[in-house]
């Protein structure tokens, strides 16, 4: 933690800006929970003292600039290909802690083959999958994760099962794959969930360190801008609409050590 001078000398900082972030104001919309995901990952990197051996792989989406905010080595992958790029990195840098940071359009739509096969191969990478049920960056089109009936700019009358199918639950899917060691879904919609999410992030990194296989933490996230809501209402939308469609939970945990307390 980068310790600022406390407002009064008698005070000690108990929470401050993570060292693994760069102190650059982000480009995210006000209240977008991408920022929370960033912060949690950075906090875990700090706790693991892993900043100097972490390599991140950013995807294409609102988080395309993730590299600006993390104070670690970074690559910026093509849309959907972060798991392939991370595979290339990790295979030749096995000592590094390698993670991808991907949106739901990136991971579940265009990058479906790459994430599936990274899991099948049991790549020793950690994937942070920020699911906001929409394409944020391009202005709010439907994603495979868009809820049934949800209106987006490419499903203007609401997502229609007959022509557009219905929600794709990637965590449930990837948990089916033998090479996946750790697959859980968490949410960022309130303080309790955020704390749980952080634990899962930590565990997902540990799975990589222990060489147990592919690890993914799906994080239900908000897009106040494209959902057309206030930041607070957006958190409510996660809680009330998204969580029922995307149940939180552990879909796969390493047999050697079941995830407790998450």
């Amino acid at each position: 933690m980068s310790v600022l001078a406390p407002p009064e000398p008698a005070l000690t900082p108990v929470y401050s800006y993570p060292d693994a972030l760069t102190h650059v104001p982000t480009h995210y919309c006000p209240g977008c929970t991408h920022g929370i995901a960033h912060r949690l990952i950075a906090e875990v990197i700090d706790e693991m003292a892993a900043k100097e051996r972490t390599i991140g792989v950013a995807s294409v989406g609102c988080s395309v600039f993730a590299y600006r905010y993390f104070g670690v080595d970074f690559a910026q992958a093509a849309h959907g290909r972060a798991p392939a790029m991370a595979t290339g990195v990790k295979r030749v840098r096995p000592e590094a802690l390698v993670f991808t940071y991907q949106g739901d359009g990136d991971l579940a739509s265009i990058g479906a083959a790459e994430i599936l096969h990274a899991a099948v191969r049991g790549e020793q990478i950690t994937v942070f999958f920020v699911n906001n049920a929409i394409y944020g960056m391009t202005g709010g089109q439907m994603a495979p994760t868009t809820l049934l009936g949800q209106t987006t700019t490419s499903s203007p009358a609401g997502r229609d099962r007959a022509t557009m199918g219905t929600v794709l639950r990637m965590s449930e899917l990837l948990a089916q794959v033998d090479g996946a060691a750790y697959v859980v879904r968490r949410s960022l919609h309130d303080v309790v969930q955020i704390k749980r999410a952080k634990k899962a992030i930590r565990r997902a990194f540990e799975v990589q360190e222990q060489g147990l296989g592919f690890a993914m933490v799906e994080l239900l996230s908000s897009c106040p801008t494209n959902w057309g809501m206030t930041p607070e209402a957006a958190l409510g939308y996660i809680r009330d609409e998204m969580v029922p469609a995307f149940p939180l939970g552990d879909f796969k945990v390493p047999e050697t050590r079941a995830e407790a307390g998450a």
Partner: protein
Amino acid sequence: MHGTVTVDETLCKGCALCIPVCPKGLMRVADDRFNARGVHPAELIDPANACTGCQLCATMCPEAAITVYRAAKVA
């Protein structure tokens, strides 16, 4: 005094997510000023020193804009 918080106004986006989570209701949007982004930043209003340094606001803040302090304990 148990604790206090500072808000880094260059980072704060005025999203107001820190406000409802404060159990003591001590956070608010400072509508008397804009930051460089053109938004009203959040601020702690704690005349009674009620802040416990519980960190809920910081946990919620998407911008990591909040630093939380507690009175140093002699451990």
